[in-house]
């Protein structure tokens, strides 16, 4: 990793030190927590002007804490630690378990929660699960702290909406409904590959799954190049909400994502292929989540 303009590697121990370093270097600063995607940003030409790397690992943000209405996960928490989240083994957290099963052990040991979000890379797996679980982040900066839903963090491919002096301090995953189940599915070419298509879904039903159980609060999150960022599919969600679980319904919801995608075409696969696979994966993910309710 060659950063030709790099002057300093900073190891701040407090939030105010982070902010003052961000102030000092402005756009020439880059926050690091896991560091596993820096080569990816470098290869895409984003790092030529980086003058300061700011390592957040001394801030004590590697915590997982049960809070009143959910769980708060510190930004430098590594993927491998996420299995300590209360309720991790429940159907509701299925998407997170699925997403964590894809990256190899080295990435699970190194990649951080905050970094995976801040990178604004729709080809990642784990942030799709955070979003389908209605995750939001707390951002710290010069003007204080603010909370943002994940969809508000992503402003474009590899671009986030944070101000130059802001950093992600933590992720809040709200308490999940006891009758919720989620799933994440990814199309990849090998175990260490970025997603060609990645979809996460969550459904919630009233009581024991049966003919009369209507879905509510459905979530469909599309990633892996189905758009420039992770996006929800309101069209698919509205097909699902208020309806009874069935394969026909899932087929209809999958077809509905066409209204919410604008697939990327690149050397790895065409937009048409992504659109076609996206539908198949939404249907399969909905079926997988349903299995978890049984």
């Amino acid at each position, binding site marked *: *990793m*060659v*950063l030709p303009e*790099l*002057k*300093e*590697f900073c*190891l701040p121990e407090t939030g105010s030190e982070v902010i003052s370093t961000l102030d000092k270097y402005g756009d020439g600063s880059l926050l*690091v927590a896991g*560091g*596993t995607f*820096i*080569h*990816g940003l470098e*290869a895409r030409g984003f790092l030529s002007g980086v003058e300061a*790397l700011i*390592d957040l*690992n001394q801030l004590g943000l590697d915590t997982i804490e049960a809070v009143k209405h959910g769980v708060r996960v510190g930004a430098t928490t590594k993927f*491998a630690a996420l299995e300590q989240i209360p309720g991790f083994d429940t159907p509701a957290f299925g998407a997170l378990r699925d997403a964590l*099963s894809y*990256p*190899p*052990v*080295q*990435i699970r*040991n*190194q990649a951080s929660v905050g970094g995976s979000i801040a990178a604004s890379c729709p080809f990642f797996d784990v942030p799709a699960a955070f979003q389908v679980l209605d995750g939001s982040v707390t951002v710290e900066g010069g003007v204080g702290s603010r909370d943002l839903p994940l969809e508000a963090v992503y402003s474009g491919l590899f671009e986030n909406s944070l101000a130059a002096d802001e950093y992600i301090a933590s992720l809040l995953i709200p308490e999940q409904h006891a009758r919720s189940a989620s799933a994440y599915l990814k199309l990849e070419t090998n*175990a*260490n590959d970025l997603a060609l298509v990645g979809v996460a879904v969550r459904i919630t039903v009233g009581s024991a799954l049966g003919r009369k159980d209507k879905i509510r609060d459905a979530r469909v999150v599309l990633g892996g190049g189905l758009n420039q960022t992770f996006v929800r599919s309101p069209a698919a969600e509205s097909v699902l909400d208020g309806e009874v679980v069935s394969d026909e319904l899932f087929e209809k919801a999958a077809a509905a994502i066409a209204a919410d995608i604008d697939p990327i075409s690149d050397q790895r696969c065409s937009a048409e292929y992504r659109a076609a696979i996206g539908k198949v994966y939404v249907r399969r993910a909905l079926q997988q989540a349903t299995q978890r309710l049984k």
Partner: protein
Amino acid sequence: MKQLITLKVNSEEHEVAVSPDATLLQVLRNELGLLGTKRGCDTSACGCCTVHMDGKAVYSCVTYAMSVQGSEVTTIEGLGSNGKLDPLQDAFIEAGAVQCGFCTCGMIMSAKQLLGDVKNPDEEQIRHAIAGNLCRCTGYTKIVDAIKIAADS
């Protein structure tokens, strides 16, 4: 500008002068002469550079040396003791799991974490544990056999 840092590698402390963007892999190979850890893709995809940081497998090619201060790094040279190879190293020899050898050290470091976490891993667990390590020679069969032998020993 280079900065003086202290790294603990294989239970020994080393003072090294590093540039701010130096990776752990560069320091291990170029400053400390520990050539068992290999530079393959240099983009966290092939696993040849796998070492342990505080007992966990990491890609040293995407780990900044500056970040490693205060952690315990173990490389392939740090396995085994009293002149004897680690059981995993012996098993790789016994199973014939080495062809060109370029991936071997990284494979062993990933397998080492698996055997620390799981007492009797099945084949699926073994294959999952080495999913972040590429081998272009063996087809993985002998590597999986070697890890099974080490688990049973």
